């Protein structure tokens, strides 16, 4: 069984919600990313979303865009990130989902990617510009390797699409809290709760909420109606502010611990 599925089973049994931090791999560099993944796990992260930097991150706001460009300037690429996951797997079983735009995956080859990711110990993949309508090939290859393909639902998704997405999704469903890019504006818990109830009517797969979640208080409120909460830009900003400093791990660990406690 996939580590993500195991995690949600365990969380459900304990009546807990998943805290899912996002960080951009290679910002400030891959060695630090490796330490940060382990620090996040220690702080209580249930699943780590590891961002693959891309030259044209059209679904991201300024914070993750900038992180992406810094990582690319360091020469970070998908193969190195898979190697990084392989190294993490020697010491940790924390579930890891890669967040990548489709082109790096497509260029790698859907089949080759699914094989390499699975061999490295990646558990799932999140591709913001690959709607379910275009994902047949990746879904097939990922399924063959036990890799989860996590699809998005948005405030604009009509009920008929909700069903199709829910049917296709493995691992969990990523609900985009606000129409917009990552980190841009605050998600309102009341709007989200209503939509989550609709989604829950069409599926019993886990639904996690991301985009516009930046504080423990907000995460706690959103977690009530969801199976998990994803926090990205706020963490990425913190990492950038303390990059190169000795206390980076402590800052990230403290913030992540506060978020984890709020979500759990």
């Amino acid at each position, binding site marked *: 069984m996939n580590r993500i599925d195991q995690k949600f089973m365990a969380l459900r049994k304990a009546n807990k919600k998943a805290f899912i931090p996002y960080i951009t791999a290679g910002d400030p560099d891959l060695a630090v990313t490796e330490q940060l993944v382990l620090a996040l796990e220690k702080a209580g992260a249930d699943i780590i979303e590891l961002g693959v930097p*891309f*030259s*044209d*991150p*059209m*679904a991201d*706001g*300024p914070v993750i*865009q900038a992180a992406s*460009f810094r990582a*690319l300037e360091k020469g970070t*690429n*998908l*193969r190195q990130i898979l190697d990084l996951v392989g190294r993490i797997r020697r010491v940790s079983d924390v579930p890891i989902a890669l967040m990548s*735009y*489709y*082109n*790096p*995956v*497509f*260029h*790698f080859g859907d089949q080759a990617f699914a094989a390499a990711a699975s061999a490295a110990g990646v558990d799932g993949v999140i591709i*913001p*510009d*690959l*709607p379910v*309508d*275009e994902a047949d090939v990746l879904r097939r290859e990922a399924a063959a390797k036990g890799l989860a393909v996590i*699809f*998005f*639902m*948005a*405030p*604009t*998704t*009509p009920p008929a*699409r909700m069903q199709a*997405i829910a049917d296709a999704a493995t691992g969990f469903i990523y609900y*985009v809290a606000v*129409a*917009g*890019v990552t980190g*841009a504006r605050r998600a309102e818990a009341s709007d989200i709760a209503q939509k989550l109830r609709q989604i829950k009517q069409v599926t019993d797969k886990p639904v996690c909420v991301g985009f516009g979640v930046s504080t423990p208080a907000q995460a706690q409120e959103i977690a009530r109606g969801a199976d998990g909460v994803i926090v990205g830009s706020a963490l990425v900003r913190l990492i950038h502010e303390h990059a190169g400093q000795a206390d980076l791990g402590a800052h990230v660990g403290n913030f992540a611990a506060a978020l984890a406690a709020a979500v759990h």
Partner: protein
Amino acid sequence: MNFPDKNGHYGQFGGRFVPETLMALLIDLEAEFKKARKDPAFRKEFDFYLRTYAGRPTMLYAAERLSRHLKTLKVYLKREDLLHTGAHKVNNTLGQILIARRMGKKRIIAETGAGQHGVATATVCALFGLTCVIYMGAEDIKRQSLNVVRMRLLGATVVPVESGTKTLKDAMNEAIRDWVTNVSDTFYLIGTVAGPHPYPWMVREFQSVIGHEARRQFLSKEKRLPDYLVACVGGGSNAMGLFHAFYKDAPVRMVGVEAAGHGIDTPFHAAALGKGSPGVLHGCKSALLQDDNGQVMPAHSISAGLDYPGVGPEHAYYKESGRAVYAAVTDNEALDAARLLARTEGIIPALESAHALAYLSTLAAKVKGKKSVIVCLSGRGDKDMGTIKDLLFP
């Protein structure tokens, strides 16, 4: 088979590679466009503005002095440069603004590289009293300051884009970010036959007026079809507009001309079809300039309108299926061709269109006997005088 298929694919290319937030809107837009194109009232309205506002039909001009110079070619120029705003872009902006009005959208956004599509968008927004926001790379704003003034004079807000390479592709990223954020009231008016379905199809349909007119005009003058069609390809809207009407005329050969920049074997070109590989950018799968890791590479061309690392998916399909061939000419060859047309015909072409003209000497050397060719003169050269001055008359 008529492309695109129901999911917006042209063979392996095209599709809708966008955030889920936009999917419902794209499906609505496709439905609205399907309805509109069958609606006589819409067609009448579009035709009305093309005739009375844009200045259609444009002439098909027999370029006799240029033909004599080239010896083996009889060249006809499809004079899109004579349209209002100075290029073919307005065919598409008029079509899309009418769709936006039907959908009740009040706010129009667009990306622009050289500023031509931005100006054509600002123009139709002024015509219909709609709010207009244009995203333009900070580098392009510096290079094309007069077009920025034109857009502002027309009432548009021009937003400088400071991310990435600060050029057209980044302007398109930023426009998509705005769109995803303001999806309920905003219409994204894409300037070329790229982006997610239904845009490549919709823009092709609006630009096809070029080819339908040219075909009719050529038949009436020559009582036969042309041997060749030649057009420049950045995103590829003027080329697709010309080519598509001749798709089923098997003997008519089509040549799309990309920008080879400093040279097709240097890193400084924009030949996505010539040198790229299949990839996904800005909502569609097509040919793309990218590195070994699937990161998009910056393009280069003297002509800002061709300076884009991707290309419309239907061109990628035309290339793959062999229906069209694609060549590339350098910055210098384009400059020479601009000078040649100016001095043989008294017509100053846009540097984009000059790429199509530059291919004619290659074609002239290749053909056997005398052949006829329609070149899409997609735009006029006024906007390029700064570049021309720096390079030819420093």
